[in-house]
């Protein structure tokens, strides 16, 4: 991943502060065209902030204090608000997790799909409508011309998510950020949406950043994975390597929490002890050490990311002692 030549999105040493607390601390990652990078972690680990910072839309209190974000070779952190609004929706688009709430209840869905076209391409209404209907057909909306005239409340959650995807993709962005795109949908619809995203990645050729806490979705869809904890990337690598050989205690525990169908029955479902500490209450050194079974004095220093395989890195002092974990 980040070692390859020219990633579409390259984040280097990104640090985001809220009230002096480093909510995101030195995050580096890269995504290439036509690949899907999953950012995985618990709530509050900074994965959404990292993604929002790409579009320059952080909450008011948050600011990028260090690092660089390059999209197609263009530095985004130094762009003005006007320049950023050129990028948003055009070069980079985002899909949220609540598809129904992500649509304006008072606008016909067709108009909402068209919006990015009207903003960035200066098309006429009629031309924009034609393109909107075309892309709605591509994301699997039956009878798109009729659907385009309907309001969000007339559509199901899955349909709304398809509308969202259509409006995000209509300008053919080089980067698509999907923030928990399937969390609010039921399982069958989830599978359809994941299918759709896989198909669109191949057809549109966008680089996709997938933010999720669902390891099942990761296994299903991602090419590469970044595991975040406490605002830092603790492990990154190709999806197969992460699942075959998780090399950070946190990743191991995270994978251990997924119930398995082929395992021994009547075992207690594993959980990770404790809670994610609130921002600002993170321990010095390795931020996972308060919950980590392998923690010792070495962990009071920030661990470097060490290579544990091809393109596979883990930030832990004890990568050689992982077998000691149950």
């Amino acid at each position, binding site marked *: 991943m980040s070692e390859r030549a020219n990633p579409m999105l390259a984040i280097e040493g990104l640090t985001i502060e809220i009230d002096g607390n480093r909510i995101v601390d030195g995050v580096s990652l890269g995504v290439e065209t036509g690949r899907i990078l999953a950012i995985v972690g618990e709530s509050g680990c900074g994965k959404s902030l990292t993604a929002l910072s790409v579009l320059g*839309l952080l909450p008011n209190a948050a600011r990028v204090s260090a690092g660089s974000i390059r999209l197609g070779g263009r530095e985004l952190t130094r762009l003005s608000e006007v320049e950023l609004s050129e990028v*948003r929706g055009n070069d980079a688009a985002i899909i949220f997790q609540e598809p129904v709430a*992500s649509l*304006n209840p008072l606008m016909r869905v067709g108009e909402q799909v068209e919006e990015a076209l009207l*903003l960035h391409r200066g098309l006429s209404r009629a031309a924009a409508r034609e393109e909107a209907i075309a892309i709605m057909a591509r994301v699997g909306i039956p009878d798109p011309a009729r659907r385009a005239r309907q309001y969000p*409340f007339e559509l199901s959650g899955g349909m709304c998510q398809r509308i969202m995807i259509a409006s995000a993709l209509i300008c053919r962005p080089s980067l698509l950020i999907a923030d928990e795109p399937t969390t609010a949908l039921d399982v069958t619809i989830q599978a359809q949406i994941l299918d759709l995203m896989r198909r669109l990645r191949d057809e549109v050729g966008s680089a996709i950043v997938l933010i999720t806490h669902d390891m099942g979705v990761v296994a299903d869809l991602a090419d590469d994975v970044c595991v975040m904890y406490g605002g830092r990337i603790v492990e990154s690598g190709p999806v197969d390597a992460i699942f075959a050989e998780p090399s950070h205690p946190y990743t191991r525990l995270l994978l251990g929490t997924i119930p398995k169908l082929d395992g021994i029955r009547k075992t207690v479902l594993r959980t990770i002890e404790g809670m994610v500490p609130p921002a600002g209450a993170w321990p010095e050194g390795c931020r996972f050490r308060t919950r980590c079974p392998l923690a010792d004095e070495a962990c009071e220093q920030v661990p470097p990311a060490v290579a544990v395989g091809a393109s596979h890195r883990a930030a832990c002092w004890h990568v050689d002692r992982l077998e000691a974990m149950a």
Partner: protein
Amino acid sequence: MSVAAATSVPRSKRDGLWRWWPVGIIALVVLVAILAPWLAPYDPNQQNLLGRLKPPGTVSRSFHYWLGSDELGRDLLSRVIHGARISLIVAFASVVLSGVVGTTLGMIAGYRRGWVEIAVMRVVDVFLSIPAILLAIITVAVLGPGIVNVIMVLALTRWPRYARIAYSQTLSVANMPYVRLSALMGAGAPRVLFRHVLPNIVGAISVVATLEFGLMILFEAGLSFLGLGVQPPTASWGAMLSTGRNYVATAWWVATLPGACLFVLVLAVNLTGDAVRDRLDPRHR
């Protein structure tokens, strides 16, 4: 028609037209106001001191008081017809002016946050802490009385109401994913505000505006009563109501007639506001 067919008929087709009768009332009042010189049987300011405070139906000299006369023997029907002009102009103009200014400022404060929010909302607090009538009196005392000044004064004192509502509604709407998403699609603040925020808060604003409409007629009455509004002998419903109050015990019709007109008009405006609000929500169509 079968039951199933009846329930499948859209709401708008079922109870659409009768809901709009208040609009008919408003249209009627507007029409009367426009055609006042032709509709009024007499000059509204022509006095007849021998025919003071005559009950409806009295004939005195050349006058036939269909709806009675006031304390100077002026024909009440003619005055009510002419007074509709002033009341409507003042109420509409001040509601539109204060509504546009207040809503715009409130939306900007709620969307931009930061120092804009602090600046706008503290000014709103200041305005709301000063008794409106006091502020109005001071302003008119400086600017001088007259219908344009009355409108300005009312707009100046009432915009904070709209700003408050628009601000709080914007705060909640601005956090909706579709508003954030629109910004993430590259829409600038004006587009986000007018295309996404305004349509979603206009229902609440219109309810406030219809309530304010009635209040504005009464405020104009109060100012006129204090000699700061429309100057006598010009008729306005509010001014007639104020003076008629003095004679309620002896000549009920002087205050009752403009009062009844006021009541019906304000009711019609409020009901129209309800209907408009429902109409703006596609779920109710």
